[in-house]
């Protein structure tokens, strides 16, 4: 087996290179049929970022449609209960559609129209990206098809209704593990045949170049705002930032603007599931190895032959055997520390945040909260721990009730 080579240099914010590489990770491992569309997307994105009218249109949508900037919130009671450092939330849960996903879908919907494409497809796990894509498409009048694993259709039913109400067609995916990974496969297959007229709004910092870069850039509004808010209100940067990582888009958007602030500790929290045994978790960075999945080279959960392993997480949004290539780069350079968090700790954190702060976090986000609370408990009171509160948990209420009654 080829060993990962450790990168000697420190992580920089100047990635990826022209080939879409973050160190050795990333790239573009897709069928030739998709190459031209990815080149088109790369070129159009380059033009868009240099076009002031593109930035202005996105800023206006962020302000008037999403409700940005999202607040920086001091979780005082939670901090007190933990008995250590001060915990702050970057409130992506109060965005329109209830999560950070809308930041990316609006940006990519604008790109769709710039490229003259008339149809949008997307994949979704927890349904947040599906809802955000359906919302952006409804806003711009674009037809939208969302692929969603059958298992996720079941456990995130409220989001399926929302997508349909927004005019999107939700196609349940019955192949493989019937989760996010299979939804991405199916969306890619649709795209193979529809690539001339359709844009694929990929929902995380995964997939072939230029998606990891584009999604990170659109999500970086989270970290840029948070950084400025910290400086304005507290005249300092946080000591530690914590975010959950499935594919890793909220974490990438939160971390990226802080990458060169060496004094800020960055912690990514993966789905630790039921145990460390293969198949019981979805922690690709903690337990996986480098390989190719969904068009990019990154850490992946795989067997000895390179077949993708089945993974488990109680949260549909983290139930994914791969991770964005930039996270792999940050892991190998040591810039970000990645740790798994178990299902039971996640549910406990969910309860505690709900009752002490009056906020129902998404189960995905509760992974980051659990780890942040653990870190805060061991740190002095004058330290600041910032959590990316990536989404709200209304979608999870029924699933949590089901898990609770199953546990009894």
């Amino acid at each position, binding site marked *: 087996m080829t060993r990962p080579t450790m990168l000697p240099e420190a992580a920089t914010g100047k990635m990826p290179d022209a080939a879409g590489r973050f160190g050795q990770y990333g790239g573009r491992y897709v069928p*030739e*049929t998709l190459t031209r569309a990815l080149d088109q997307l790369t070129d159009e994105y380059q033009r868009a970022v240099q076009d002031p009218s593109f930035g202005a249109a996105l800023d206006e949508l962020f302000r008037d449609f999403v409700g940005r900037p999202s607040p920086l919130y001091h979780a005082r009671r939670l901090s007190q209960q933990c008995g250590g450092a001060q915990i702050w939330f970057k409130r992506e849960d109060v965005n329109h559609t209830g999560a950070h996903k809308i930041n990316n879908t609006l940006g990519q919907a604008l790109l769709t129209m710039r490229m003259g494409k008339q149809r949008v497809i997307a994949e979704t796990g927890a349904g947040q990206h599906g809802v955000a894509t359906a919302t952006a498409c409804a806003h711009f009048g674009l037809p939208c098809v969302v692929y969603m694993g059958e298992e996720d259709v079941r456990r995130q039913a409220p989001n399926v209704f929302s997508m349909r109400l927004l005019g999107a067609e939700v196609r349940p995916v019955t192949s493989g593990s019937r989760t996010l990974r299979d939804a991405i*496969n199916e969306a890619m297959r649709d795209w193979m*045949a529809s690539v001339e007229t359709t844009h694929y709004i990929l929902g995380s910092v995964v997939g072939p170049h230029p998606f990891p870069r584009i999604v990170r850039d659109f999500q970086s509004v989270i970290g840029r705002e948070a950084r400025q808010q910290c400086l304005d209100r507290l005249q300092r940067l946080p000591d530690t930032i914590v975010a959950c990582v499935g594919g890793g888009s909220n974490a990438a958007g939160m971390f990226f603007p802080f990458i060169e602030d060496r004094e800020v500790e960055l912690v990514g929290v993966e789905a630790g599931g039921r145990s460390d045994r293969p198949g019981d978790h979805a922690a690709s960075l903690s337990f996986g190895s480098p*390989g190719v*999945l969904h068009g990019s080279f990154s850490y992946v959960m795989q067997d000895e032959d*390179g077949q993708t392993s089945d993974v488990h997480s109680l949260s549909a949004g983290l139930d994914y055997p791969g991770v964005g290539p930039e996270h792999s780069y940050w892991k190998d350079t040591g810039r970000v520390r990645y740790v798994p968090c178990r299902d039971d700790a996640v549910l406990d954190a969910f309860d505690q945040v709900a009752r002490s702060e009056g906020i129902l976090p998404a189960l995905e986000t509760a992974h980051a909260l659990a780890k942040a609370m653990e870190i805060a408990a061991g740190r002095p009171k004058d330290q600041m721990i910032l959590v990316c509160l990536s989404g709200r948990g209304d979608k999870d209420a029924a699933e949590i009730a089901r898990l609770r009654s199953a546990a009894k």
Partner: protein
Amino acid sequence: MPFVTAGDPDLDFTAAVLQELQSRGCHLCELGIPYSDPIADGPVIQASYTRALDRKTRLADILQMTSRTAPTLSMPVVSMVSYTIIYRRGLAQYVAAAKAAGIAGAIVPDLPVAEASQLAEICRREDFSLIQLVAPTTPRERAVRIAESSTGFLYYVSVAGITGERTELPPDLVDNVAWLRTRTQLPICIGFGISQPEHVKRLAPVADGLIVGSAIVRRIAEAGCRPRDQVLAEIGAYATELLNALQT
């Protein structure tokens, strides 16, 4: 040129199918190495990969089968294999092991030219073909560059889309292949969607080979629930039907 999934429903049957196709006069066989997440494949080939993986078909077992079977065949066998699997084994190790097992080359559907230089270098050194693909969405100047870096033959993907039988093939397919014909010395083989004698008749004049996958894999799938001899004979008869269309 048939495509067969290794290990569907088991490796013994795969070996029998290879023998049968050879006896019918097929010129080359693509052996699909099952992969858990094949994004270029339609439902028929996906399902066959899933069946093979459900039976715990391992790469080592597949190579063992080919090392027994390939020496008895005069038609070359090339592997259709995801880069993930090659990378996991190690690039040089995969090429060496496949070559030792009688496999003549690799088609790596998720490895576009820009990412292929390292593997291409190893394949050149080992005299192992690395067959590149051109798609209908490939701009012409890029197609020429791809042809220059391909070895063995050039795989022309007939339609933008996934593998699977189709009744209609794109109207400009013949012209596009004929154009590429004028720009490369390499044999050009067309694949994706081809399943009917009419397709074969239409494409034979411009192509050096025609690849038929899903239509064969669909027939192989019946070996799970019907007498194998019968299924084998039907696969053979289907191959003969297409080969006859080649002559006319």
